[in-house]
């Protein structure tokens, strides 16, 4: 099951032209940093921080056409805002798995 909307990816490539590779690299680097920050925040049960980081990853992911990843981030963001963290570790795992898929497919989309 493709985790990227490939039609949108094509549009994004048209917009970015040569900068598409840079965009992918930047996005992935940024996301990895934020994911590790999110991991820490979850361990410390910092609801606000969790919501903030999830919101940020959600926005960037939706823009890079990773719709499913954005969906998962929204769940974490909502939980953080509601200060109901019970399911958050589970979501986080799903996010990590999804991110690996996104990373793979984005790399394929390059070249």
């Amino acid at each position, binding site marked *: 099951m493709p985790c990227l909307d490939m039609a949108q990816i094509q549009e*994004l490539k048209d*917009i970015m032209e040569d900068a598409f590779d840079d965009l992918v690299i930047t996005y992935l680097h940024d996301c990895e940093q934020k994911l590790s920050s999110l991991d820490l925040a979850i361990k410390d049960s910092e609801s606000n921080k969790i919501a903030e980081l999830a919101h940020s990853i959600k926005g960037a992911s*939706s823009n890079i056409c990773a719709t499913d990843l954005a969906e998962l981030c929204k769940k974490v963001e909502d939980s953080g805002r509601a200060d109901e963290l019970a399911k958050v570790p589970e979501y986080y795992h799903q996010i990590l798995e999804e991110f690996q898929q996104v990373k793979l497919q984005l790399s394929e989309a390059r070249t």
Partner: protein
Amino acid sequence: MDEGQLNILIADDNQSDRMILSAIVKKMGHQVCEAADGLEAIEQYTNQSPDIILLDVLMPNMNGQQAAIEIKQLAGEDMVPIIFLTSLQDASDLAACLESGGDDFLSKPYNKVILQAKINAFSRMLKMHNTLQEQRDVIRENNEHMRHEQQVARAVYDNVAHSGCLDLPNIKYLLSPFSIFNGDVLLAARRPSGSVHILLGDFTGHGLPAAIGAMPLAEIFYGMTAKGFLMSDILREINAKLKNILPVGYFCCTCMVNLSFRRQQIEVWMGGLPDFALYREASGIVEHIKSKHLPLGVLSSSAFNPETQEFSFKPGDKFYMWSDGIIESRDESGELFGEERLFSIFNGKNPDLFFDNILDSMDTFAGESGRDDDTTLLELSMVNESVVGTVDIDLSSGAITGPTDWHLSYTLRDDTLKTFNPLPMMLNILNDVPSLRSISGQLYTLMAELFSNAFEHGVLGLDSSLKSSADGFAEYYKQRETAMKMMKDDFVKFEFDLAPSQDGGTLTIVVEDSGDGFDHKRINGQKEINLAYCGRGIPLIYSLCDSLTYHGNGNKVEVRLSWDAQIEE
């Protein structure tokens, strides 16, 4: 920068988001500057002055809403559209964005087409706003320019239509300007003879159009009054001038007054004004003085009638004139102040307070809602001439040295004698002599007496004793009319001779007429005059000159005035 190219600030903490937006915006041909948080966004706004801002809502350091508030404050009157970038869904969150100064939203994931449409829409709005601001600035500049011009014009106006001798102790007045220029004109000047000319004019309209008409009016009034012209001559001249220069429908409601201290009377010409008040101290009665003419500037010269009304004016009597702004002022309910209310003020016990009472009662009546026209009020009181002092002739005009050695002969024959007053013209010539200018008033009186003697008593043969009673006055003028019709080959001849001496000079005036003369032998050479000759004004003439001699059978008189250099200083 190309036409239509904008500078767009992108503020988002996600670098990848900035990259995507930046790529879209650059593809549209705009310039981009970037910021990674709210503080940076404000900094970039200050340094780069972007035209449009794309602002992420949730950012570290300072969030988008706070940044929007600060940027809008910095922008002041400039328009800076802010488009919030958001994936927020909650309605109250979106509303909070707009309240902080946002103009629109763009939701994630970004849609190229929608972003382009929004940027284009704001670009049009910016253009319109800039045009408006430019036009506003032009209007502001024009307005400032106009105000400046008006101030300069005002200075010129004040020099021309100055208040003259309104500061005389027997005049109280109020001129309240409705705008920078006043539709009302109030002028006062002394004639060489010492009497006072006052003119109140109320032009149709206000401001510049009214002020423009006032300038030639004032010019003529002051110029002709100083040269000794009569009220009727001055009014005729002003009417002709205004008729000539004012557009149809514009005119000047006018009251002109000549106050003679010696004769204790006022002569009034009124056109187009409401009733004025003449207060008699002896009886306490207030007379309504009515306009008998159309305003100045309406009739052609041939139809114009300069006829005046004469009233005796004893010490303590007061004459009040006003513009219709007083009668037409309204109270809060819109009721007019009105003539009745105004005249009732003269029923008061203390005439000295009438002037202040009118002002007080108007202010009380109109209150804040106030005056919707120019309000002008003047009180003229009869006093002894010594209270107002002698005429201060303007020494600044004319040649510096002037003619000092000359002879002039001037003969007036029948037709001229009937219609023409030669005094202003002759006085003008004498005023070119600096030493004589300072005694211009005396000279005028002297020549007026000499001329009236030669013409009325000499040529027309009228008996001055008639004038001692009121009936006689009428009879005198009747005889005068008849005698004028009978004139044939008559003349009055003036000869002026000005001779310099070491320290000053001597002016000799010889006046000869075609009449039969009179028995002058009894008075020649003696300064104590029999009262019977008062009609010929001889004591007055004596008092004004150094010597007076009659020649022949009394139809030729010679007067002499000498002065030394000190008079000139």
